[in-house]
């Protein structure tokens, strides 16, 4: 498979009043065309900052990508100017976020929010964009899409909003979809629906996915490969099956042990990971 994304020695820091936060420290990984990569780690491990760095959406100041390369479709994204980067964002590479309740603009209709990327990147006129938006909403399973497209975000439930976010992300047929904990804010049954939806869309469209989560069990049926992050570094990287069968890093072992299993005799307590992740500065 061809290499789609190659991240090499990425370093992102935040220059705050309390000192420099080393959020991402020399992270390297790659994603091939059509591949699904899972990034797992606890809060503060640098997962989100890593993918926001790839999108070049780190708020700056205080954030800054201090070194590394992000080769996407053969170009180093850290060397192109802002205008070229905007062509990549939402077009070749799209992102969906953790909280669907706050990630949609409350004063714009769903139509306005989906069509703007289509008009911008694909040069569609308004009629074409609206038609395509309705198609996208149907594709992600929004019932009565022709009517719902004129609704505002507050008229949708959390799960439905995340479907809208996915429709927005897929609008321009991106080669890479970055999903930053897209199911964390949803309840369990909706989580499963969203995971199934993304799997189906991946198989239909054939895009690559980076799926960030702190829930290792969620990646089992979804990811081809998994990298485990801790304190801004990649501590383990392996094929999904190998991670579960033969975890190498003590932290990965800890993560796996903290998952309750249905096929084992019920123990009194789950095994926690001792301590707190170190502060990154």
């Amino acid at each position, binding site marked *: 498979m061809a290499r789609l994304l190659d991240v090499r020695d990425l370093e992102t820091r935040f220059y705050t009043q309390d000192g420099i936060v080393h959020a991402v420290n020399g992270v390297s990984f790659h994603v091939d065309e059509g591949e699904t990569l899972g990034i797992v780690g606890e809060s503060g491990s640098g997962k989100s900052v890593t993918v926001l760095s790839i999108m070049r*959406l780190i708020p700056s100041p205080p954030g800054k990508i201090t070194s590394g390369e992000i080769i996407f479709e053969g170009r180093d994204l850290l060397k192109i100017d802002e205008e070229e980067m905007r062509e990549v*964002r939402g077009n070749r590479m799209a992102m969906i976020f953790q909280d669907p309740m706050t990630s949609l603009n409350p004063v714009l209709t769903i139509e306005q929010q989906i069509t703007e990327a289509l008009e911008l990147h694909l040069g569609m006129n308004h009629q074409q964009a609206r038609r395509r938006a309705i198609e996208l909403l149907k594709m992600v399973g929004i019932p009565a899409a022709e009517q719902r497209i004129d609704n505002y975000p507050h008229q949708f439930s959390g799960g439905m909003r995340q479907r809208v976010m996915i429709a927005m992300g897929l609008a321009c047929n991106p080669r890479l979809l970055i999903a930053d904990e897209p199911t964390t804010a949803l309840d369990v049954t909706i989580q499963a629906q969203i995971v199934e939806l993304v799997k189906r869309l991946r198989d239909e469209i054939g895009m690559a996915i980076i799926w960030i989560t702190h829930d290792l069990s969620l990646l089992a049926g979804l990811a081809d490969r998994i990298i485990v992050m801790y304190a801004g570094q990649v501590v383990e990287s392996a094929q999904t099956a190998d991670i579960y069968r033969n975890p190498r890093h003590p932290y990965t072992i800890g993560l796996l042990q903290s998952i309750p299993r249905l096929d084992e005799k019920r123990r009194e307590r789950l095994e926690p990971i001792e301590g707190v992740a170190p502060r990154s500065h």
Partner: protein
Amino acid sequence: MLKYIVNRLLWLPVLLVIISFITFALGVYGPGDPVQQLLGQRSDPETVARIRRELGLDRPLVIQYIDYVRRALRGDLGESITVARGQPVIKLIARGLWVSIQLNAVVIALGVVVGIPLGVLAAVRRNTLLDYLTTAGVVMGISFPTFLTAPILLWLLSYQVRLLPPGGWDGVFSRSVILPALVLGAGPIAVFARQTRANLIEVLDQDYVRTARAKGLPELLVLGRHALRNALIPLITIFGLMLGGLVTGSFITETIFGIPGIGRLGFRAFSARDYPILTALTLLIAVSYTLANLLVDVVYALADPRIRYE
């Protein structure tokens, strides 16, 4: 929505009765006597009593009030006692009202046209020299009282530089409007600038702004389409309050610049205990703020799709 508006409007007469009664009672029982003011300190008590009788001021409060309401319903708010003796209050107010509305419209427009862009610039260029200068200007605009800025500007621009006329009123499209508009506009400009800056900074931190950026939208579109509208919605309240104040005029500024508006009329009526004028002014202000508040609620519902009135 329509039901809500009608409902709110039905409360207006109730409010007016309460307010007019309180103001009326304060006029009758409050300190100072208009007839005494009219005739001077050393007036003959018999003449005072005669004029009081002529004006009907010797009757019990409730009778006077009922008479007032009966006439008010026919559009007669009484006559001025001291400020312009015998002239109908309605006419005096109408004359001043038009002047004050024009002046205040200029002031509010200044606040919106200057204040909001300043606030946007300060928010977008946060922590730069421009932001600091704006903040300093805002603090001055809010904290300098008009009785200080009016004489200073008057002295500087009219007396020293002789650039602008020192006062008077030649209509809204004349040079005489500039000085009072600057004096009165400093506050609204500062308030709009500060609120816009604060709201926009908060909104630019929201997840949906990040979503907009993730779509690859140019920063100008992110700002104009996604951020600004959300940041400006809370300003409707401030705008509404200022709109309510459109008819109140400014006691101090209008008096200093000799502008024949509601503010100066109110100041003179107050000094001379001309309570038919004061009562009418109070009612006018009450109606104005009530309608402005209603307008705020309606505009809010139009601007923010999440707000619905049942």
